[in-house]
């Protein structure tokens, strides 16, 4: 006997687990990519509709050029379509996969074009302390995002700014050094320190395992 569809009370009288928006999104993405891999263009359309603001927004934050960002965003979706058969959900969520494609393409484009990278002040202001979500917004956010935002808020502002410029602005440490007017070594230290602090905050330590053989 197949289980009841979600939203229906099953024979045991239990209402099936309510949709969890994050899980549902991930499951929907997997189903869409599976259908894309089979050549379903309607699935591709839904996938584009769902993610286009994130993809375009990330490309724009790196390229600071609407035309170039649109080119990169289009290419990102095209590559997702072409490589949908190799997507493996066990290695990461679809959103991560798609944004990694986007980020790599945008960084390649900004290196080739040598177009004016995004104004670091604009990016940092957008992502900086003043932009971090407030308590009400955090309460609505998923737990992963909440943990990240809280960890970011604990970083010294100069480290947070350097990390945002590197991760979301796609800037090299040399570029950060120039735009921030700081020595290259300082730029590297800020980015690395921020990454290591976030890692310590976000990545759970390996559990202690007692391997002793004594009773």
């Amino acid at each position, binding site marked *: 006997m*197949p289980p009841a*569809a979600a939203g229906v009370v099953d024979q045991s009288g239990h209402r099936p687990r309510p*949709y969890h928006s994050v899980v549902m999104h991930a499951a929907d993405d997997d189903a869409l990519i599976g259908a894309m891999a*089979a*050549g379903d263009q309607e*699935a591709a359309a839904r996938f584009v509709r769902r993610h286009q603001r994130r993809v375009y927004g*990330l490309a724009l934050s790196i390229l600071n050029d609407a035309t170039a960002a649109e080119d990169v965003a289009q290419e990102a979706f095209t590559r997702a379509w072409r490589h949908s058969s190799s997507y*493996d959900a066990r290695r990461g969520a679809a959103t991560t996969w798609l944004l990694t494609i986007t980020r790599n393409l945008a960084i390649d484009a900004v290196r080739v074009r040598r177009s004016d990278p995004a104004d670091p002040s604009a990016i940092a202001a957008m992502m900086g302390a003043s932009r971090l979500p407030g308590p009400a917004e955090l309460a609505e956010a998923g737990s992963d995002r909440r943990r990240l935002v809280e960890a970011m808020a604990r970083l010294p502002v100069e480290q947070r700014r350097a990390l*945002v410029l590197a991760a979301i602005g796609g800037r090299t440490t040399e570029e950060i050094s120039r735009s921030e007017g700081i020595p290259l070594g300082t730029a590297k230290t800020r980015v690395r320190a921020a990454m290591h602090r976030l890692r310590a905050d976000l990545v759970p330590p390996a559990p202690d395992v007692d391997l002793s053989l004594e009773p």
Partner: protein
Amino acid sequence: MTDELTCAATRDLLPDLALGSLPGDDRARLLDHIGECAACATEAAELTSVIDEVVVHLAPRADPPAGFESLVLARIASRPAATRWWRRPMTVAAVVAIAVAGTATGLYVTGGGSSRLDGEYVHSLQALGGKELRAAPLLQRGHTWGQAFVYEGKQSWVFVSMSWDVPDGAYRVVLDRSDGPSLTVGMIRLHRGEGSAGTTVGDTHTVTAVRVLDASGRTLCRAALPE
């Protein structure tokens, strides 16, 4: 002189690797080291996940210019994707999840079992205009060699997965139809006895069975689809 990196030198470069800002030569040397060093590999993976988290959760969103979606779909339509086969373990799971979901609103699904995410997959496929998904085991003398799935929607598709002790190689997938001769729709490649493949097809409502054939044309296993 050796080009091999020490762990200390590697870890100094790992943030740049995670950020994608390493030059090609350094990147190659680093990846060589990571391939041999579990501790550095773990740290690399963790730093990469940090960058992924920052990008996924904090990257700004912006509305693309009008017509963006149409332009993307035009580019996609120009790529030959309609007949390709694919092999992807998680897709197997996704399809199985759909098949075991039971009867859901609007999308008629046949099969049995249970899945944690069943409702969501049905929801997605229903939203894609799905009408029916039929599933059946690929059988050979009572043994289950795999599963076959036939989906009818705006774009219909067939998917087979196999796990059985047969020689590695390519096997032919054939659809038996009630209104015409059998139709070969593609090949499934098995590695260590396992493989999966799928493709879009035309009309599927007259498909009665899915068969997997070896190179000599002998039927290895057959899935009789529910009416």
